[in-house]
């Protein structure tokens, strides 16, 4: 069980790393997907640990949420690229301190 949790944490961390490191907005969104997947893995692991269905049900619904979120994210990226020409985080410079 600990191994699976470590895997989950590793995926979560790598996802976070992707968000922090990459400038491409699409890759950032993909990294967020990795993070969400890590969380879903944790749910399934605990579901297995307790032998209850709850975690799995939560996981299923969380997959739906992740998909919905990515849809909105992609829509925003498209709108952003229309305005600024490239899906680059460094192009987000209109809002400042």
């Amino acid at each position, binding site marked *: 069980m600990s191994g699976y949790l470590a895997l989950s944490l590793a995926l979560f961390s790598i996802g*976070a790393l992707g968000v922090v490191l990459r400038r491409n907005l699409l890759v950032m969104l993909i990294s967020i997907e990795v993070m969400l997947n890590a969380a879903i893995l944790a749910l399934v692991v605990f579901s297995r640990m307790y032998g209850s269905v709850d975690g799995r049900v*939560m996981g299923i619904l969380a997959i739906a949420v992740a998909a919905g979120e990515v849809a909105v994210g992609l829509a*925003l990226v498209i709108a952003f690229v229309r305005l600024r020409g490239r899906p680059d985080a460094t192009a987000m410079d209109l809002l400042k301190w």
Partner: protein
Amino acid sequence: MLAPTFLTGPAPLELALAPLVLVITACVVLAAALFRRGSEEERLVTLLVALGGCAMAFLALLQLLDRPGEAFAGEIQADNFGVYTGLLATVATGLVLLGVLGHTRRYGAGWGEALSLMLLSLAGILLVCMAGGLLALFLGIEILSVAAYGLTALTRRRGRSVEGALRYLILGAMASAFLLMGIAFAYGATGTTSIAALAPAQKLAHLDLTALELLALGFLLVGLGFKIGAVPFHTWVPDAYEGAPTPITGFMASAVKVAAFAAILRLVYTPLGTAHLAGLQNVLGVLAALTMVLGNLVALVQTNFKRMLAYSSIAHTGYMLLGVISPAGGPGAVLFYLAAYVPAVIGAFMVLVIIGRDTEDLEELGDLRGLAREHPALGLAMVVFMLSFIGVPVTGGFTAKLAVFSAAVDNGYVLLAVLGIVMSVVSVAYYLNVVRLMYIPAAQRSWYRGPARIGERAILATAVVVLLVLGLVPGEVLEGALDAARPLELLALK
């Protein structure tokens, strides 16, 4: 013996009625907008429908006051805490809708979408407020967040709007991942998904889940700290607030904030949270201090009114966090603080909406120059809002700060309370700067002309009256807030 309680207690559907009404109204509005979005009259009608939905949700919630009940396998938990916060958020949304009553022309594109997203978001907020299960709470937060992303990008041709929304979404989705991870660990540590039953597992010789509990709390705090806008998870606030169209900003600063605090209070005051209350208090205490200091100091140097209010909103989050960490009386004080904060912040943003009615968005501080001379009533209302933000007596802000700080002192956080007071002194500078600017004579060119619309008058008058009432005779509301939060406190003090 069971019969009377069954008869008097609310039926399951009654508990879920308010969100249901909102979702149905949202669908109606959306459908109407899909097929007809031409004329201003039609927009007005859809707005009235949305307002009607809010009103019905309000009544449905009001029904539940003092009639606690739970249904749907405990996923809906309509205790007074949930109903109180839900009512507050509903009123806030209603006020925002009322405020754009005269603005059918300005926000032409996306009118129907905006209304339906707002209603859906409110439904999510109500779900958060009345959530009895972790999953329902998470989904409520997700609904309100995803609607908020959409709303922030409502002016999709404006770079700022899209950029603010995109930043909000990237960080928000990241925070959602933290939240989901936290929920997973909470489930792992306790074996249950019901918030009320979220208790540490029994310690057995070969079994110790304490670390899981702590991981759960840590992840949850990141996710919820993000939603309430606590430093260092606050960074989305100024961007999203500045980028969003102003009425939407008002909505985010009021209703969404209510939901965020409802969520954090619910999760801190579970058996799981109270088992590690000391650690949580320390962590949140540090966050509160950082939040108060950073919010106020950065607000000082802002030139954009919306951004300034965003940082001020962060600062207020800091004050409220003091209440969150004070088990005795704190949660109630936070509820009351929200009640006093919501009208002021909506009012302040609405003044901005009103003066920019005929033109582009006016949102720089300089745009307020001379406002009070030209429109004394607007100026006066704004003065009241600013004073309430500062916490000057007779306004609700004073009573609210008094309640929160005295709760903090009561719980031994004297230094934090002193810091809070010091920081509210610092805040005087930027709030009064607004007042000063408004009284400087200037030939402003682009304010609205003509008399104020009925909705605008209504909302400003309501906000001012509510603030004064909360300042002068807060008794009833304060009692109500304290009572509503008492179950949470009892959990911690046990």
